[in-house]
């Protein structure tokens, strides 16, 4: 019997690796990096290359983390695309147009994100409408409100703000003139979400909700509360990126952010999160985000036609879904082979 147990516990370290949800994402990352290292040459391999994809990865990655948690819980959030400019403009209007202290503007911007998340969460948990439709609805509502109020208050679709030195260094600093401080924020968020999903008992609830909502509820998990928390996290994350953008650039535009909707979802899917919920990992989302951004920025350095880049990203997405299914099958079947 003791032999039985040790055999199970060992299981082969390679096999154990292949069963992890992020294995596919890691392979994809390595392959993509090698391809663009060859095509992009020295510049891509050096600091300019790294900073360009890391800066992008930091922004989309901060949003992809909670979007990934939502997808693990079986939900979507499209509204992040309009929360981002809503937050930027709130900061710019409060601290630029009305000249209030910047911390009030920042708090206001982040508050907008939390509020939209709360509304999303309440709508998703209190109705039976799919979250895709609800968050498309809130996206347009927030977009309309942002545009209307900005024109009403500021009289234009762009608003300027001059950040003070401290705020600038916290949200908008750049190291070596290239690496945005957002990368550090991203790293911090990765650690926090990693602890939440994989270490705290709360993470188990997220997986259970995505696996089977009714069973999770019957097991005593506060499903509605967790769902609302997840939407508030994604609202907060989108608003946070909005804040870093307005502080970095000193201005906010109504028409910013829609690219984050698809990009965040793609990072998550490339990162191995199940399309039907119930499975995924933070490390996977991290790898997925890096992969996506390496392709996205690598295109410039490799001199390829940008349209080719879109094709590569599309192919990568399909390949990721296929290989993730494959890896999941390996994880599921490992018991059967062992006998």
């Amino acid at each position, binding site marked *: *019997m003791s032999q*039985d*147990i040790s*055999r*199970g*516990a060992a*299981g082969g370290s390679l096999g154990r690796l292949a069963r992890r949800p992020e294995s596919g994402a890691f392979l994809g990352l390595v392959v993509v990096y090698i391809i663009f290292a060859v095509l992009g040459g020295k510049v891509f391999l050096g600091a300019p290359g790294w900073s360009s994809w890391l800066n992008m990865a930091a922004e989309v990655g901060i949003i992809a983390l909670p979007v990934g948690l939502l997808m693990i819980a079986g939900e979507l959030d499209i509204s992040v695309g309009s929360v981002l400019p809503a937050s930027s403009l709130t900061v710019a209007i409060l601290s630029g147009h009305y000249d209030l202290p910047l911390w009030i503007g920042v708090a206001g911007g982040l508050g907008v994100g939390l509020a939209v998340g709360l509304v999303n969460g309440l709508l998703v948990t209190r109705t039976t409408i799919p979250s895709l439709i609800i968050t498309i609805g809130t996206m347009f509502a927030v977009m309309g409100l942002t545009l209307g109020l900005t024109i009403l208050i500021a009289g234009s679709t762009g608003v300027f703000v001059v950040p003070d030195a401290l705020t600038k260094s916290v949200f908008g600093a750049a190291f070596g003139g290239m690496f945005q401080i957002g990368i550090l924020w991203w790293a911090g968020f990765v650690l926090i979400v990693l*602890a939440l999903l994989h*270490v*705290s*008992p709360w*993470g*188990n*609830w997220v*997986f*259970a909700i995505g*696996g*089977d909502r009714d*069973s*999770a*509820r*019957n*097991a*005593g*998990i506060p499903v509605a509360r967790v769902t609302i928390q997840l939407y508030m996290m994604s609202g907060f994350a989108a608003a946070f990126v909005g804040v870093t953008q307005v502080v970095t650039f000193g201005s906010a535009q109504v028409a910013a952010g829609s690219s984050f909707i698809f990009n965040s979802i793609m990072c998550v899917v490339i990162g191995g999160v*199940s399309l039907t919920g*119930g*499975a995924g990992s933070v490390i996977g989302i991290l790898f997925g985000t890096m992969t996506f951004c390496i392709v996205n920025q690598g295109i410039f350095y490799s001199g390829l036609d940008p349209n080719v880049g879109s094709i590569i990203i599309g192919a990568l997405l399909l390949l990721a879904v296929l290989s993730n299914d494959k890896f*999941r099958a390996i*994880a*599921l*079947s*490992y*018991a*059967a082979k062992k*006998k």
Partner: protein
Amino acid sequence: MEMVHTAPVLELQSVDKSFGPIDVLHGISLKVHAGEVLCLLGDNGAGKSTLIKTLAGVHQPTRGKILMDGAEVSFATPRDAAERGIATVHQFGGTFPLMSIGRSFFVGVEPTKGWGPFRIFDRKKANDIAVKAVRDFGITRIDDGDRLVGGLSGGERQSLAIARAVHFGARVLILDEPTAALGVKQAAHVLRIINEAKRRGLAVIFITHQVMHAMAVGDHFAVLIRGAIAADFRRGEKTREEITDLMAGGETMADLEASIDAQERRHA
């Protein structure tokens, strides 16, 4: 111990259940004692699932009473029933195929270590307890709590779900066709687990179509026809043929064969 003198763990008294104008259950009275397996038999649409959902708090009876240990109870939600020790295991057992054995075993009641906001999920403890619980039920092939539930066989999943219910103090175990999708060996496996649960003093309500499976573990049988109890008897009081005939709604197997013959002749 003599069971007859103790109050039944769970009892239904003249329970009716209607969905609006549709009457599904009529005057159901049933008892199940600790350490006893009650087999609920019945054709498709007879109302078996509706009956157990009423016991599990999913539906509330339209009329009639539910008693536990002789005292009337009412379950507003499945949680209420679960808190009173009524555990339902569905056909496919574990409902979280992509979760590990240890994590799914403790869904909602995760063991933690650490302090305050830094309490973390105790993976090792969860895995050890879960693996031990299933092994105690005789499933010695399960030895790694990190394995995904979806990778277990149908019978192992059922066993895991039953072991989980028992571990968390279930007193009544409701099994909705646990052997329906299983082959002979796997079904035998699940039947052994049912016997083990019974030996540990649980009251088991076992729903099945297969008379053989019912006869292998049942102490007490109730046949449901169109929402009413058509027969209620104990082990050894009826033969397999009689039970099969009862399930077919009073028609004997011979009647059924005759009607199939007639139909074939018509189509020939």
